[in-house]
């Protein structure tokens, strides 16, 4: 392969919707590449040499025949957007957590993808699409300080397809501590139509375990976990934002979540019970959720995820608390 075949000056290359079956290593000459789109081809494997693209910001490999991504993807420190949807991925490389700039991941429509690597939880994602569910973090449309987590089903599916998607989510929630995965599952768990399934699979119990069993940490490990730049204008008083009170609030919140979730597991009007409990405790929950979401750097990851879980329920249940949380 002639390395002169492509101009090294290229920063943008779109080869989508062709009939390529491979991506030759000769592309490594493109050291300046920032956008590489090779969607909708017939590519079964990406070369390890993809680590040549150290300036790459967007990689679109959707709708190919990929069963895996090369581990060298983890070296792409500038990568912001990864679209690997519509493949046959069985897993993601454990190195993906090293992509520090990554904020959008789409691994939707990979029916064999059941697990996410542990390292996935180190990513600070704004958008994550998996199993037909798109979860995004975006500025509050009302202009309030804070963030809105929004989950939406990317398309309508038959009950069978939805069941498969839920199985995927359950597996992923069990293997990854990434809050977006947990949130995606939690948002689905509140759906009347799938509540029974989630309870059957023990998924809700997993969520409870996930949200309550991880010991609170005050180390710096979590400081960069959640970009709190959007939350820096918090209106919370200093008395409620100290580390100790934050942990107390988190513990209390986790306890409430456990109670609520266990109640749901009792199979007594699962979805309705959750909803009623949340509404009943609305006043108490608001300041706790606000504190956690506004000071994630001071909180345990699991507790923030627990907060997101509850906020997700509130949002999906149509209560006004969701926005109250952001106002406090």
């Amino acid at each position, binding site marked *: 392969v002639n390395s*002169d*075949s492509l101009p090294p000056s*290229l920063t*943008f290359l779109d*080869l*989508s919707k*062709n009939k390529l079956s*491979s991506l*030759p290593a000769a592309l490594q000459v493109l050291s300046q590449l920032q956008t590489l789109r090779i969607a909708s081809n017939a590519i079964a494997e990406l070369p390890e040499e993809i680590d040549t693209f150290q300036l790459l910001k967007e990689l679109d490999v959707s709708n190919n025949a990929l069963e895996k991504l090369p581990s060298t993807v983890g070296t792409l420190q500038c990568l912001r957007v990864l679209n690997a949807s519509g493949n046959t991925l069985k897993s993601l490389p454990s190195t993906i957590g090293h992509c520090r700039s990554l904020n959008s991941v789409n691994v939707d429509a990979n029916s064999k993808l059941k697990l996410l690597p542990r390292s996935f939880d180190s990513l600070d994602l704004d958008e994550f699409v998996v199993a037909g569910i798109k979860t995004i973090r975006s500025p509050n449309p009302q202009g309030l300080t804070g963030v809105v987590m929004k989950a939406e089903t990317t398309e309508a599916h038959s009950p069978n397809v939805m069941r498969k998607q839920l199985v995927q989510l359950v597996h992923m929630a069990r293997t990854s501590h990434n809050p977006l995965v947990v949130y995606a599952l939690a948002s689905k768990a509140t759906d009347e139509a799938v509540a029974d399934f989630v309870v059957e699979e023990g998924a809700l119990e997993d969520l409870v375990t996930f949200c309550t069993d991880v010991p609170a940490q005050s180390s710096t490990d979590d400081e960069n976990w959640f970009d709190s730049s959007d939350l820096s204008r918090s209106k919370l008083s200093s008395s409620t934002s100290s580390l100790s009170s934050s942990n107390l609030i988190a513990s209390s919140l986790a306890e409430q979540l456990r109670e609520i979730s266990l109640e749901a597991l009792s199979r007594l009007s699962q979805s309705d019970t959750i909803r009623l409990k949340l509404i009943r405790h609305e006043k108490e929950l608001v300041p706790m959720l606000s504190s956690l979401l506004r000071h994630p750097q001071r909180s345990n990851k699991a507790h923030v995820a627990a907060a997101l879980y509850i906020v997700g329920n509130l949002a999906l249940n149509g209560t006004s608390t969701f926005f109250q949380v952001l106002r406090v």
Partner: protein
Amino acid sequence: LEKWVALVKGLPALPKLEKLVVANTGMVDPPAAASLTHLKTLSLLDASGNRLWSIKTELNVSTLTSLNLRDNQLRELPLSSYFRDYSTLLPAIDLIFHNFS
């Protein structure tokens, strides 16, 4: 169509051309390379939505930063140097529309 062909044939007279879009023209694979070395400032080439399927020569234009070949029939890389010289587009276009050359 004739105007468009005339425009492309006139490209050599546009030495400062920075962007060349020949998208969705029905263009198929080009004949042997010709020269379009006049376009020394070209930074963008959009040849998407055509019927290119095999480009056998080298693509190496030092000023080119953006290459869009989306929605063609390409089966393999490397891309050819057919694009190395943009003049190769001319006979291709001729071939498609008028069977020139």
